[in-house]
């Protein structure tokens, strides 16, 4: 009798690390499933009544122009403070965002700007070899994590540049481990008529975005969970 009980306890203590590990994994899995379940559900009663800190991801080419078009019609005083992030090699986007924020400050007469402008390392430059891209992607993820820890946004607005992927994945991760619940909105670029971009495909399939918007009806037919909103430009 005593032998079996001591045997039981010794078995338990040797398997304790394993038990802890399995429990830990199980908790994470349950939490991930919960986040996926709640993703896409309007905040409703959970909606905070104060302004929401907002991360806005900019990108070269038409991305920034489209984003600015969207920002012009949002209720600005509800999305504040605003954090703009662009790739380190993108010179024009942050400048355009600064112009927008300056004109907002001028028209509202508010002194000082409740906006910050940051640059992030790119996972991969156009034409870069895929082998070196592994390292640069890791660097970009680490940089994204650093920035996200500082910002911890409640709202993420993005529309396609590759820079948004590390940021959205980390936002999802923050939801899982309870650091910050954010609402992630993705607007696929107007240039995507029949096929989603790689960023769009990832965020759609992984169900990371809370709301996924497309600008052409062909995409809405192909991706039924997307909202068709017509052309923004």
């Amino acid at each position, binding site marked *: 009798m005593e032998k079996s009980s001591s045997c039981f306890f010794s078995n338990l203590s040797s398997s304790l690390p394993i038990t802890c590990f399995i429990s830990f994994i199980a908790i994470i899995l349950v939490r991930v499933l919960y986040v996926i379940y709640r993703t896409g559900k*309007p905040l409703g*009663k959970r*909606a905070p009544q104060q302004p929401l800190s907002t991360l806005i991801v900019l990108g070269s*080419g038409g991305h920034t122009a489209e984003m600015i078009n969207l920002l012009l019609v949002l209720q600005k005083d509800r999305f504040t403070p605003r954090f703009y992030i662009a790739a380190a090699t993108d010179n024009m986007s942050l400048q355009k965002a600064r112009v927008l924020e300056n004109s907002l400050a001028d028209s509202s007469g508010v002194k000082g700007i409740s906006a910050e402008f940051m640059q992030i390392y790119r996972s991969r430059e156009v034409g870069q070899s895929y082998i070196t891209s592994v390292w640069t992607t890791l660097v970009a993820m680490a940089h994204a994590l650093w920035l996200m820890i500082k910002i911890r946004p409640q709202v993420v607005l993005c529309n396609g540049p590759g820079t948004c992927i590390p940021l959205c994945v980390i936002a999802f991760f923050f939801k899982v481990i309870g650091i910050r619940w954010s609402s992630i909105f993705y607007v696929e670029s107007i240039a995507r008529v029949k096929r989603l971009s790689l960023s769009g495909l990832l965020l759609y399939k992984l169900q990371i975005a809370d709301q996924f918007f497309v600008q052409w009806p062909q995409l809405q037919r192909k991706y039924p969970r997307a909202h068709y909103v017509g052309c923004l430009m």
Partner: protein
Amino acid sequence: MGEAEDGVKPKRVVFVTVGTTCFDALVKVVDSQEVRDELFKRGYTHLLIQMGRGSYLPSKSTGDDGSLAVDYFTFSSSIADHLRSASLVISHAGSGSIFETLRLGKPLIVVVNEDLMDNHQSELAEELAERKHLYCSRPQTLHQTIAIMDLKSLLPYSPGDATPVAKLIHRFLGFPED
């Protein structure tokens, strides 16, 4: 469209833009005698090329010899003024250039860069061409497009609207409707 006695033709500028990209194939073909002659035949007097990061340099021309006047530059902080003073725009298939031009109501020929990998840009150009908002072309067929184009048949493009998206976002976040 004959010349007046004092030799002053109304200035009609063709503005070519490649945005922030490198699109030597377009700059080269626009600089070719074929395309220059075709543009001149259609009544254009000036050709201004924004060549971006390309390495091919077009040959300038004052047009004094009764041909197209040609000039070029690499970048400008805003091409809006050049677009506004153009009678015809020939652009790469970047969405920024396309919509900036369409919103100004300028006739547009979009030339798709076939050297780009994963050419999603052509989707947008083809869709808008199907809806008759612009002409779509490849570098090799540009002179034909110029020869046969009927700019009056193009339909004006009504600017898009971001309010549907904004409404959905506000509703999701629980903001009261304004």
